[in-house]
């Protein structure tokens, strides 16, 4: 377990104990943050979009080409944009701060 600090779509901040070894998306879904994650984590749908806060971007790894292609089509892509199903949640991410992106 490690901490994740999340700002939801209504701008409210909260904290969860995330499970290590599963994806960030699965952690958010199990804690009822409004993420559809329709494709179930296959990097196919972009309905699991989050923004990683600036100081954590480097530690969450690189986006794949496919993830980039999906994100680039969204109006609301930003520098910290990630598809949360593509971010494995690891012990090193203890304290990770993210914001759930708007639903497009």
């Amino acid at each position: 377990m490690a901490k994740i600090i999340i700002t939801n779509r209504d701008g409210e901040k909260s904290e969860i104990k995330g499970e290590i070894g599963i994806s960030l998306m699965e952690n958010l879904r199990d804690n009822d943050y409004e993420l559809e994650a329709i494709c179930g984590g296959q990097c196919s749908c972009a309905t699991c979009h989050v923004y990683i806060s600036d100081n954590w971007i480097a530690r969450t790894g690189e986006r794949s080409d496919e993830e980039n292609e999906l994100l680039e089509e969204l109006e609301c892509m930003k520098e910290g944009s990630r598809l949360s199903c593509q971010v494995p949640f690891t012990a090193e991410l203890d304290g990770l701060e993210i914001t759930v992106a708007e639903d497009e």
Partner: protein
Amino acid sequence: MDQTFVIVGAGHAGGQAASTLRMKGFEGKIIMLGDEAYVPYERPPLSKGLLSGDIDIERVYLRKPDWYAKKNVDLRVNTLVDTIDKDNKSLALADGSTVTYDKLLIATGTRVRKLNLPGEELEGIFYLRAIADTLAIQKRLKPDAKVVIVGGGYIGLEVAAVSAKMGCDVTVLEGLDRVMNRVVAAEVSAFYHDVHTSAGVKIMTGVGVTAYEGDGDVTHVVTADGARYEADLVVVGVGVIPNCEIAEAAGLTVDNGLVVDKFAQTSDPDIYAAGDVTNHPNALLGRRLRLESVQNAVDQAKTAANAMLGTLGEYAEIPWFWSDQYDLKLQIVGLSEPDDDVVIRGDPASRKFSVCYVRDGQFVAINTINNVKDFMGSKKLIAAGRKIDPALLADVDTPLKEM
């Protein structure tokens, strides 16, 4: 007093609805009744990653098993609902007990259509709808096993792809003249036919299966032309039937699915329905339809849950769907018709291309193959229902987003 919302069917739509109800602050009782042994799970991996062994069962659950207790959702698995009494707002369960509701959500999904051919009782013949089916198929799926797939729809072809990769000897028997006939254009069928053939899969089209032969275990699949195909296991995927018998018996309107309005409400004001089981209107498409997809299950479940809470929002989404075979990611947006004009966008030989469907000048649907950019770019365009020059659609240098 607290209200009680009951959900019949613990599948994708049922699970999503429970989650939305709690997310939207519903504090009453939620009882979810499902006849399977598992917590709600995602079915797509059943013919993909779960079958191939790439992912474990725990990873296909929609929510972790402890979520239900945490959210005070009374999930009862292995629980079959026999009848609905809408006048007394109560349900009779197969175990003889009853459950009463203030509002009811029917999310009973579909079941596989069975062929019921001579020999169907033999061991080794499977349909694929539930985790239990995938586990049973897996036991027989060994390298060199002779696998016969009946039905060249997306589920059959996904199983063919997994089996071929595992080193099985795979034959697909399709009754129509091409694979995935119902969902994609001939160009896309031909592309997938070639991909499977290069992977060693034998595809026979225009063949009707008439019987199975064997002694205890299945050994052969027999077709109308008299051919006999050797088989260690058979997987049949020939469509589904909506589970609306209990709704119909209760006096709800049923017509190719349980009929709901744009707010997912049935003909009874306290009964809602969502997912594969519904026949629903879609203003963007200008007609009623029944869909079998996760997108529909999720989006319609949200509409239904909101309506149960008194927030009416119209369900109108452009349908989308996907199928993974080998390294190919097929995504489908919109609903194409056989008479649509077809525009190829990109080069199929590159294994990354799209096929656009145009009806009366209007861009109505797309199939994207390994082309998530077009998948994303097409959604708003198709929803807008715009007329677009086919020559422009064919131009890969113009992103769909800019059209």
